[in-house]
């Protein structure tokens, strides 16, 4: 068995044990991160050049994905290459995969736990391009997998490079009439464009319908305050605000984090809106000078150690400002001046907003 296969098996076991309802000990995760990072430093020269500061392995800045190929395998073995959608720089983040097994496993189990914990499958309405129209987008890839794993049917209301408002309206009216819950998934941009285009139309989606939005505004289009957009979506679609959750993902990562409110509502608990961190991921606000964890609920820059990043680098330093809230994380936005990036920009490009 190769070293890679051993690591893959360890990671799969960690993620699968969570799916099986077992408690994942942070020490086990941390040990895996240490081992994985040490091995990755020997395989990826760029990562190997980073010096360790403190007890944790060094974290590779996300911007490095814009300038260098960060992959242990040769280009010929690429099975899928995800690129960030930033256009302010000609250099987009690139994350190449030779194997999407861990990505799929992490994405499926996280979504099942946080987005579809109460239901095996349901109808999906996606405010984003189909995977085939955006082959290098990790978001579109993930949404296509959601359609396979959780969808009784799925309609992509993004057609021919634009949001198809007529189709969206038809789908929402059909869902309304069916009395069955649906999941409306899309980028924050797309929801804003829907707000702009749907006029005074209102929908009353069935109970247990839910909304997942993702991505920021990249400073490139009309920005809507997060709370304002949340209220607008709630009113527009007739979905309680706690059933509208944000997903946090990035091209450089293989795992996603989700806001907790939907899951808590289903469980009958109440807590502050925050991101749930999958137990195979370590998310830590760090001090920008020392790169060590900040204390308590102080704001730091978000470091994410994602064990599902097997063939690139698992320890990633983002430019997002974040703080701990209870057992989760609140992402406060990207530092001004940091490279805007993320999937929701692809949608805005398609709408000609740039």
């Amino acid at each position, binding site marked *: 068995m190769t070293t890679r296969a051993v690591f893959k098996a360890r990671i799969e076991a960690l993620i699968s044990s969570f799916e099986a309802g077992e408690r994942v000990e942070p020490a086990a995760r941390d040990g895996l991160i240490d081992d994985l990072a040490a091995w990755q430093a020997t395989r990826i020269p760029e990562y190997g*050049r980073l010096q360790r500061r403190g007890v944790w392995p060094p974290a590779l*800045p996300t*911007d490095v994905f814009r300038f*260098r190929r960060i992959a242990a395998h040769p280009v010929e073995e690429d099975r899928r290459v995800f690129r960030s959608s930033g256009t302010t720089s000609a250099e987009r983040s690139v994350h190449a995969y030779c194997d999407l097994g861990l990505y799929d496993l992490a994405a499926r189990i996280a979504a099942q736990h946080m987005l579809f914990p109460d239901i095996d499958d349901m109808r999906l309405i996606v405010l984003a391009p189909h995977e085939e129209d955006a082959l290098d987008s990790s978001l579109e890839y993930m949404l296509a997998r959601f359609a396979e794993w959780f969808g009784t049917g799925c309609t992509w209301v993004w057609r021919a490079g634009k949001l198809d408002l007529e189709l969206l309206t038809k789908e929402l009216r059909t869902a309304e009439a069916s009395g069955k819950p649906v999941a409306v998934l899309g980028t924050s941009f797309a929801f804003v464009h829907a707000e702009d285009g749907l006029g005074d139309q209102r929908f009353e989606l069935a109970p247990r319908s839910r909304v997942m939005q993702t991505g920021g505004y990249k400073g490139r289009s009309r920005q809507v305050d997060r709370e304002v957009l949340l209220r607008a979506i709630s009113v527009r679609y007739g979905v309680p605000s706690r059933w509208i959750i944000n997903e946090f993902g990035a091209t450089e990562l293989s795992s996603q984090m989700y806001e907790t409110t939907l899951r808590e509502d289903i469980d009958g608990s109440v807590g502050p809106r925050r991101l749930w961190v999958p137990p195979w991921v370590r998310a830590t606000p760090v001090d*920008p*000078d020392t790169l060590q964890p900040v204390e308590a609920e102080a704001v730091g820059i978000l470091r994410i150690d994602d064990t599902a990043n097997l063939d690139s680098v698992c320890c990633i330093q983002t430019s997002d*400002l974040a703080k701990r809230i209870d057992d989760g994380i609140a992402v406060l936005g990207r*530092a001004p*001046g*940091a490279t805007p990036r993320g999937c929701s920009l692809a949608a805005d490009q398609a709408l000609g907003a740039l």
Partner: protein
Amino acid sequence: MTDDASVVRRRAAAVLQAGAALRTASVEERAHWLAQAATALAHEVHGKRSELSEATALSVPMVEWAARTTLATIVEDAMLGLARQAQRGSHRMRSPISMLSVILAGNVFTASVRSVIVPLLFGVPVLVKASSKETLFPAMLRDALVQTDSRLGAAIDLVVFPGGDVECEAALAELAEAVSVYGSDETVAAIGARLGDTPLIAHGHGVSVAYCGPDALDDAHVGNTIADLSLDICAYDQRGCLSPQVVYVAETVSWSAADFARRLAQEGLAPMSKTLPRGRLPLSVGANQAQWRGIAEVEGTLIAGDTYAISVRDTQPIRWSPGFRNVTIAPVPGLDEALRAMKPIGSNLKCIGTDSASLPELQARLADSPAFSAYACTIGTMQTPSLDALADGHSIWHGLFQN
């Protein structure tokens, strides 16, 4: 606390009206008053150093250093010399403009000094729009001028309003014969577009670099080179357009750029973090710093201390740091290659610091090259420009006289 358009308009009118009285004074009188005011302000700064540190996010020693070195340039002889220079030029027969409005950026708090003192010296009244981030020092400057002489004091005032407030901006500009704008290229362009026919004196985005020739690294000079360069890097926490972002180092048989960088860190930047400590690091800058330092490690060598870092790497591509004492050292064979590496920076390059031995050749090369509008000075003085130093390729009195 911000001002609305009616307040801006009222103050502009008052300042404009005070211009006539100001011009009845001789240039010698005005230079005398301005020097007096600078001395008084220097005393005031000491008493308000903590508040200024809070307002500017610079450390107390840095605030005191910055104010002292800036105000030290406001002396009668220098001002009279400046007036003579202006008279020798093509401006001799021309009258000063009736009023200047100045829009300040917030990155270097002492920038208000030259932008206010010089127009007043030439008899031009000034209305200053201070950065909403930093109003304390401009207010102290105005108060010092008011207390020195009533004619002088009436010819300067201050307004504060949010950037992008078009109504206030129009009120600021409508009585001015020129508007001097400090800020990003985008800010300057946006304001320029809104100004219409009012002449714009643009001070857009700028960066500076340094060049250390072979003599700078020899045994007799390297100590001074390190001390001077450290001061240039640390001053204002590298937030200004005169802060060196990249230092091109001519490697010698005995010195590699990496060797020099290590000594610069140990003997220059580390001690200076005690004597002139860095101010608080904004988190947004910190996020960019983490990215920049990581890339520096991946692409070259990073030498990092508690509050500084040096990236030793090739000249291209230039990875601009977020400032705050994060500097690049790039090895070059000599001045030719250094200038070639600087060329893509174009008109955004404001100043090139260099060692004394390299200065004459660098000045000659800059004079011969239309690609550069930057001026050259010796390292150790990059952040303390003399009163008559060029501003964006122009004389400091550019725009203050009628055509």
